C-alpha cells in the first residue's frame, strides 16, 4: 500500500514534464510521421494517403526533392564537421581558462562568455553582418589599415563557412563552457593532490585525470553540439542568404521552403523525418565510439 502510494506520488512529479513531452514532442512527432505518408498540401482539402511516395521521391535522383534534400544535407554536414570540434575544444578551453582564474574574476568572465548565448539569432546575425561587411565592416576596415586586402567574408568560399562557424561559436560557446565548468568542479580535488605528490605535470594531470573524469559530460556536449549544429538555420539564412549561389543553403532552409513556400507539408515532413533519423544514427555512432564496451561498475 505504502509503496503504491509512493509510486503514485513520484508519477505526479513527472506529470508536468510528461504532459509537455507529449504535447510538444511525441504528438507532433507522430503527427509529422502521419503527414509524411500523405500528399499533404497546406491549402488543399484532398490529402490522399500516398504511402512511401514522399520518401521515394527524396531518393529518386530525377526529382527536385532529391537535389533539395541532398545538397542541403551536404551543406549541413559541412557545418557540423567544421563547428562541432571547435564547439567542444574551445568550450573546454574556455572552461579551463575561467576555472584557473582568481575566484573574484571567475564569476565575471563566466557571465561575460555566457551572455551571447542569451541573445536571439537575428541580433547575432546583425552584429556579425556589420563586423564582416566586405566594404564597410569593422574587420575589413582594420585589415585595410594594416595594409591587407579586404576579405569578402560572406560572399566567397571558404570564408562564408568560416564566418558562419565563427558567429555560431561566439553565440553558443558559453553554454558548453558552463557545462564543462561544472564538470571540472566535480573532479575530486584529492586526485590532483595525489598526482602532484607523484610529480605529475599540469599536462599529465589534464590528460590522465581531468579528461577521463569529465568523459560522460564530454559525450553529452559532443552529442548536444552535434544536434544543435544539424539544426543550423538562422545564421546562414540571415548572414549569407544561402549564398554564394546556394553553397550555404542548409537542409532546414530547404525543408522550411518546401513546407511553407511550396506548402507541401507531406514531402517536407518526410525530409524532416529522414533528417531526424540521420541525427539519431550519428548520435548513436558517437555514443558507441566514446563508450566502447561499457565496463560493469563504471558509470
Amino acid at each position, binding site marked *: 500500500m505504502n509503496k503504491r502510494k509512493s*509510486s503514485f506520488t513520484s508519477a505526479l512529479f513527472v506529470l508536468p514534464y510528461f504532459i509537455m513531452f507529449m504535447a510538444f514532442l511525441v504528438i507532433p512527432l507522430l503527427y509529422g510521421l502521419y503527414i509524411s505518408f500523405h500528399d499533404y498540401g*497546406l*491549402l488543399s482539402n484532398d490529402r490522399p494517403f500516398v504511402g512511401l511516395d514522399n520518401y521515394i521521391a527524396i531518393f529518386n535522383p530525377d526529382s527536385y526533392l532529391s537535389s533539395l534534400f541532398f545538397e542541403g544535407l551536404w551543406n549541413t554536414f559541412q557545418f557540423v564537421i567544421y563547428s562541432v570540434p571547435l564547439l567542444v575544444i574551445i568550450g573546454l578551453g574556455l572552461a579551463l581558462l575561467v576555472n584557473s582564474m582568481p575566484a573574484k574574476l571567475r564569476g565575471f568572465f563566466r557571465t561575460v562568455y555566457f551572455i551571447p548565448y542569451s541573445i536571439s539569432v537575428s541580433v547575432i546575425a546583425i552584429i556579425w553582418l556589420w563586423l564582416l561587411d*566586405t*566594404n564597410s565592416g569593422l574587420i575589413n576596415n582594420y585589415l585595410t589599415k594594416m595594409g591587407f586586402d579586404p576579405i569578402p*567574408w560572406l560572399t566567397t568560399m571558404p570564408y562564408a563557412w568560416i564566418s558562419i562557424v565563427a558567429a555560431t561559436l561566439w553565440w553558443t560557446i558559453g553554454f558548453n563552457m558552463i557545462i564543462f565548468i561544472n564538470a571540472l568542479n566535480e573532479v575530486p580535488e584529492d586526485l590532483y593532490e595525489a598526482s602532484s605528490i607523484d610529480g605529475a605535470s599540469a599536462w599529465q594531470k589534464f590528460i590522465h585525470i581531468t579528461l577521463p573524469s569529465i568523459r560522460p559530460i564530454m559525450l553529452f556536449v559532443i552529442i548536444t553540439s552535434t544536434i544543435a549544429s544539424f539544426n543550423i538555420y538562422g545564421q546562414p539564412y540571415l548572414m549569407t542568404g544561402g*549564398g554564394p549561389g546556394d553553397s550555404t543553403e542548409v537542409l532546414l532552409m530547404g525543408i522550411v521552403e518546401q513546407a511553407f513556400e511550396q506548402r507541401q507539408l507531406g514531402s517536407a515532413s518526410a525530409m524532416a523525418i529522414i533528417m531526424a533519423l540521420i541525427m539519431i544514427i550519428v548520435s548513436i555512432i558517437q555514443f558507441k565510439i566514446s563508450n566502447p564496451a561499457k565496463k560493469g561498475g563504471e558509470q
Partner: protein
Amino acid sequence: MLKGKKWLSVLFAGLLVFALAACSNGEDSGGGSGNANELTFWAPFSGPDGPKMKEIVEEYNKSQDKYEVTLQIVPQSEYYKTVDLAVNGEKNMPDFLIMHGDQILTYANKDVLKSLDDIVGDKIQKDAYHPKGWENATVDGTLYGVPLDIHPLMFYWNKDLFEKAGLDPNKPPKNREEFLEYAQKLTNKDEQQWGFVVPTLWPQQFIFPTIVNQNGGRLLENGELQYTSEPVVEALQFERDLIEKYEVSPANVQQDGEVTLFLQGKNAMHLNGPWMMNQWEDSGINYGVAPVPQLGTEQQAVFANSHNFVIPKAVDDKKVDGITNFLNYVSENGMAWAESGQAPAAKATYESEEFQKLKQQPEVAKQFDNAVFSPKVENWGQISDPLYNAVNEVLLGQKEAKEALEEAQKQAQQYLK
C-alpha cells in the same frame, strides 16, 4: 509496477483524447464571428505601417455605428502560414485580409478566395482605382482583390554626394547613359565612395526583373522560361559590368551591404522599395527619391508588387456589405496609409492635393503606369530561385552570365509543371 504502467497508459489515452478534442474544437466558428456587422481583418503590417492601418480602422469605427472592424496584425514572417491554416480549416478565419498581389494566384487556384466580379462595379467603383491595381488582383479574368497600394522599385540618391561630384542634386538620371555618367562621376575609390553599389541578393528580386522588362524581355512568357533570352542575359551582364567594367560598385557586396553603404553616405545611388523610406528618414541622410531611370535598352518599366484586400470564399455573403463599406471608406480616407510611405491605389487619395505635397509618395504613384508584376504562374518563388542563385553567382564574379543562366533555366524547368 504494473499498476504504475497501467496508470500511465490511462493518462496517455486521456491526453490523446484531449489533444484530438482540442484539434476539432471551434469547427463551428468558421467565417469569424456570427454577427454580420462585426468584421475581423488580418494584415501583415508589423512594421511602422501597422499603426497607420490601425488608425484607419479606428477612424472608420468612429465614423459610423453600424459596422465594427477588428484589425489583427500577424507578423510578416508568420503571415501566410497563419493564413493558410485559417483559410484551409475554415477555423478562426478573418472576414477579409490583406494579400500581396503575387500570392493571389496560388490562393485563387486552390479556390479559397471569393470572386469579386459581382461586387466590383456594383458596390465598389472600378474607376476609383488605378487600373494596374486591378491587373495584379486578377487571375484568368476573375477578380479576387481590391487594391490597397502598389509598391514599385524606387530610385534613391544621396544629394550631398551629387553636390560634391558637381552634379545637380535635384536632377536624378533618366536613362542608362546618364546613370553610367553620374555613377562614374560619383565613384571615388580612394575615399571608398561608390556610384551605385550592386546588391547580390535581395532586392534583386525587384531590380533584375525591372531591367529585364526595360530591355523588352520577360522572365516567363506563354508558359516558357526565358532565362537564356537576350534581354535577360543583357540585363545580368549590364549589372555585372557596373562592377567589373565601369567599376562604379565594389565587388563582393554582401546581404544588405548596399543599404549599409547608402546609410553611411558611401553609396550615391540606390534601388530599393518604398518601404525603406522610414530608415532613410531616421538616419538623417540628405536623400532624393524618383522613379527608376530607364536602365534597360528598350522601354520604361518597373517591377512592382501590391497589397490587396481579399475575402475568403467561405465567408458569409451577408458580410460583404460591411466589408465593401469599409473598403470604400479606405479608398476615400487613404492619407494615413500614404504616411507610411506607400502610395494607395485609390484615385481619391493619390490624386489629392494633400498627397501630392508629400515627398516620396507622389514619386511612387508616378510609376503606377509602368508597373509590371510577377509572372502569373504557380510556384514562381520556387521557379525563380535558381535564377536568383545565378544572379548572385554572376554578380559575385564566380560564374559567367550566359552559362549561369543556362544552368538556372535547366534547373527551373523541373519546377515548371
